[in-house]
Structure formats: structure tokens, C-alpha cells
């Protein structure tokens, strides 16, 4: 379907081959072969029910595929659990699910990785505050203060902190599930800028699920279209256009989506 990239020049951070997932009689994923190069931002688009969230759940280790293979850094792996996927540096950032509203920004940044004042059991708040502030500044995340409770921040700021935390905890492959959903233009711009900053830093590779094709074209290096449980389109954003993406999705409706069962 597509040419394998030269592993020397552009090694894959993660690659899947022929992933299949069924729920009873319903086939959610028929045959998903996709790859993400190191440092790349891949936009994953597709209609509701196309299998995007199932696919992301498989990469997160939350759902086990019925067939197919996953490679991380060219090594075959079995993503048997969320914590195992974490240990491989795969992290999903869900909107509004990741942070604890009642805790401060820096306590969220260090959740479960809190620094202590050895040998005392007490938290080293000063150090955590400092490190969180530095890290957020480095990533270009602008928030009033790391001391405020997350509840007091806007949706965009919270999303940015969740992403920044994932990067801080050594995530190498970030899965962003609709990072811009339910966000105003200003808020969305904040996240797109953060993703852009991450791309420039080049330490993480990103798969971003999105509905807004314009934002995908603006932010991503490459775009994949998932339809009826398989990838039907794979092009660098430079070689495609908004019209082409719209046309591809619309065609599905004109031809009739009834021929393939979808999960719903």
C-alpha cells in the first residue's frame, strides 16, 4: 500500500502491521498498517466509527488486538497493558481526564513522581515548583502561576499542562485524542503552538486525532485517513489539500457506507 521508509534515515518510532480488532460480530479494525517516524507529527482523521479510538486504545495498551503486530523502535512488542505501554514511552493525553482539578499545577506535573526532602517524608514543594516552572517555560506553555489549582485554568491551559507533563515524564510517543475538541480558536491556537514547539524540539513523535482538517494541515507533517477499519489514505500534508481530504470523506457517503460494517 505504501512504501516502507528507509529505516536508517527515518526510523519509525512506532509501526503497526495488519492490526485487526473485532468486538463479537463487529469488526472495528480490519487491517491497520501505519507508521510514525521519529519526531514526526501524524494527523489521524476519519469519521466517527471509523475505528480511531479503538486504534488509539490498542496503542495505549488498553485494548488487545486480535491480530497484527506492533513495533516500537523497530522491535516487535506486545502492548499488553497501559503500564507496559507507558514503560515504552507511549502516553495518551485525554482531554480533561488527565489532571486533578483540586491539585496545583506543579503537583499535577509531579503526580506520582513527587520529590521529597530525603530522608524526611515531606514533599519538596520548592524544588517541584521550580522544575515545573522551568519545564513549562521551556515548552512555551504560558500559565499565570504553577501554584494555582488546575480547576482555575482554562481548558486549553489544562490540555497544555497535560501534554507538558507527558513530555516531562519521558513520553516518546504522544497520542493526542482530539486535543482541540470543545476549544475556542484562541485556546486551540495555544495547543497547536505547543505541538509546533514539540516538533521543533524533536524529542517526541506525535499521533494527533482530529476532526478539523485545516488544523491537521497546519500542524502535522503527514495525514492518515482511517475508514472502515483500515487506512485508506497516507500523504504528507504538503502533497494534499483541504479539498482533497473533504472529497475523500464525502465520497464515502456518496458511494454508500453500507457495504462495510462499522462499529457503532
Amino acid at each position, binding site marked *: 500500500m505504501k512504501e516502507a521508509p528507509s529505516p536508517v534515515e527515518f526510523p519509525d518510532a512506532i509501526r503497526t502491521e495488519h492490526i485487526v480488532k473485532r468486538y463479537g460480530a463487529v469488526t472495528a479494525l480490519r487491517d491497520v498498517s501505519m507508521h510514525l517516524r521519529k519526531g514526526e507529527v501524524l494527523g489521524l482523521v476519519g469519521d466517527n466509527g471509523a475505528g480511531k479510538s479503538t486504534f488509539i486504545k490498542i496503542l495505549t495498551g488498553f485494548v488487545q488486538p486480535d491480530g497484527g503486530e506492533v513495533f516500537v523502535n523497530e522491535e516487535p512488542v506486545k502492548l499488553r497493558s*497501559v*503500564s507496559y505501554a*507507558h514503560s515504552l514511552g507511549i502516553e495518551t493525553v*485525554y482531554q*480533561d*481526564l*488527565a*489532571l*486533578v*482539578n*483540586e*491539585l496545583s499545577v506543579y*503537583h499535577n506535573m509531579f*503526580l*506520582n513522581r*513527587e520529590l*521529597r526532602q530525603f530522608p524526611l*517524608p*515531606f*514533599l519538596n514543594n520548592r524544588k517541584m515548583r521550580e522544575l515545573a516552572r522551568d519545564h513549562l517555560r521551556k515548552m512555551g506553555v*504560558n*500559565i*499565570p*502561576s504553577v*501554584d*494555582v489549582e488546575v*480547576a*482555575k*485554568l*482554562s*481548558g*486549553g*491551559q489544562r490540555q497544555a499542562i497535560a501534554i507538558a507533563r507527558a513530555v516531562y515524564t519521558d513520553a516518546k510517543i504522544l497520542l493526542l485524542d482530539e486535543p482541540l475538541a*470543545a476549544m*475556542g480558536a*484562541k*485556546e486551540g491556537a*495555544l495547543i497547536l503552538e505547543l505541538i509546533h514547539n514539540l516538533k521543533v524540539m524533536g524529542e517526541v513523535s506525535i499521533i494527533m486525532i482530529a476532526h478539523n482538517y485545516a488544523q491537521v494541515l497546519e500542524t502535522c507533517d503527514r495525514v492518515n485517513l482511517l475508514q472502515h477499519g483500515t487506512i485508506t489514505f497516507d500523504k504528507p500534508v504538503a502533497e494534499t489539500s483541504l479539498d482533497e481530504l473533504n472529497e475523500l470523506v464525502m465520497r464515502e457517503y456518496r458511494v454508500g457506507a453500507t457495504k462495510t460494517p462499522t462499529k457503532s
Partner: protein
Amino acid sequence: MAETTLSNAPTPETGHPPEPAGKSFWTRLGSIILRQREVSILVVAIVLVIYFQISSSNFLTNDNIRVIFQFVSATAIISAGEAMLLICGEIDLSVGQVFALAAFIMYFVNQAGLPLWVGIIAGLLVSAVVGLFNGVVTVWFKIPSLISTLGTQFLLNGITLTISMGEPEITPAGGQINQVMGLNPYSEIAWAVAVMVVVQVILSFTRWGKHTVATGGNLLGASEAGVNVSRVKIGNFMLASTLAGLAGILEAFRIDSVDPLAGGTTIMFSAVAGAVIGGTALSGGLGTVVGAFLGVLALSILRDGFLLLGVNAFTFDIILGVAILIAMILNVRLRIWREAGRQ
């Protein structure tokens, strides 16, 4: 929440919502009271003290203050553990029965010929095991703690009545231990304050405390971040139960009697009500141990004041019920006002 836009988020310079200039002192004081739940309940307590002192000159006497301490101590100790549990999103209805059981365990161990301090430790250990049981049943079998601990409550009550054959016993005498563990009129309140300080420090300044808040505030998010939420919950069940056992043992020493019907649901509901009045959210994630202590203090002042004024016991329950309801409604309303006050 998510609807908040950038424009009304806190400004970068101050880190606080922009305060309109020229606010009067009283407006600002009012806003502090509204935002800090502990301050508001403290104000209520002070107002109650002033009212009762005016109504009855006997209120601020040495003897009466000691009576208030008696009302406060055991309940406040239970309330500290209950606050931690509520913050992590659970509740324990069986603490009142652990209260009675722990004292009997101490009594029987001592009767078996072992020193009194061994009995005390045995009582606390059994309490911790009950907490472990509550936690495991709740977490592993995914039963809401409201139900699982309701079961434990009946179970423990039955066990205590069985082993005691329904008869109260005289608390064993062990000299200095009795004084330290509650016979001295100020020892129980000293224990209560010490417990409050220690548990509040755990909540505010340790990983355990932050994980407790995270577990109650966002269970899924906390476990996604790798927090062992099951361990946090089970641990807090054990803490609440152990503190209830401690309160029961202290009370047995204070009144010099081990009573199978001591504690019960009355003390449990007082402890929960105190925690909630003190600003702990029943939904989890929010609350302080200091607030729970002050909540119990306010309830105790109310109860004692009514006694002094000679309010009929039946009337007292009516007024207490209304007072708790008002406090609960305020609990919810105040949070809405506070959130509105942020913007």
C-alpha cells in the same frame, strides 16, 4: 470549568484573579471567609460561643469547657480519619462499631493476663484489620463503601455484643497509662489535637496526602498517572478504622467503662457531619482535617450550649438536624459562590 476562557483566567502577573481596586476591607474579609472554609466554620464557632456566653454566663467556665472537650475529642479523632476517606472518595459507616470493638479487644487481651499496653496495641491492630477488610471488600469487589461498610457495621456490632455478652465492663487499671490514655481530663483533647495535626500534615505535605486528593479528585486520571489508587483507598480505610479504635479506647479510659453500645452510628454521623460542615466534599477531592476538627467543634459547642440553655432533648435533635441541613446546603452554596467569586 472547561467553559472558562483565557480572558477571565487568572492574570499572569499576579497569579491571582484580578481584584477590582477600591474594595472595602469588609468585602475582602467576606471573600476570604467565603473562600477558606476553615475560616468560615471558625467564625461560626466563635459566633456560637459569643451567643451562648451571652445567653448563659456558665458557658465559658472551666467545667463547661471541659465538657465541650469531652464532646469534641473522640468525635474529632474519628472525623480526622473520615475526612481522609471522604477526600479519597470513600466513606466508612462502621467506625462507630470499631469504636466499641477496639475497647473490648483491649479489655479481653488484658483479661487474658497480658499487660494493658499490649491490649491497647491489640485493639488498634484489630481496628486496622477491620479497615483493611473494609478497603479490600470495597476496592476488590467494587462495592460502594456506603454499602460495604454498612455491612461491616452490623457485623462488628454483632461481634462486640457476642464477645461481651452485651454487658459493659470496668476498664482495667494500669496506673499511668489510664491517665495518659484519657482519664486525665485534658489527655483526650490533647490526643485529638495531636491526631489533627499529624493527619493534616500527612494530607498537606506528603505524597500520601497528594495521592489521596488525586484519587478522590480524579480517580481515572490518578490511576493513569500511575497512582496506586487501590492502595491509597485501602490505606485510608485502615487509617480511619485505626483512629476510630483509638477514639474508642480513649473513651473507655475516660469514662472508666467498656461499653458494647458505646459509639455506634451517633458518633459516626457526628464525625461525618463535622467533616462535611468543615468543608470536606462528599464527592471527594476536597477537604481538610483542620476543617473537620472545627466542624466537630462547632457541633459540640452547639450541643453543649443547648444543654446549658436547657433545651429539651427532643427539641435539641430537631434543631441539630436543621443546623446540619443548613450547613450542608451552605456547603454546596458556598462553593458555587466561591467559584463565582473567582471571576
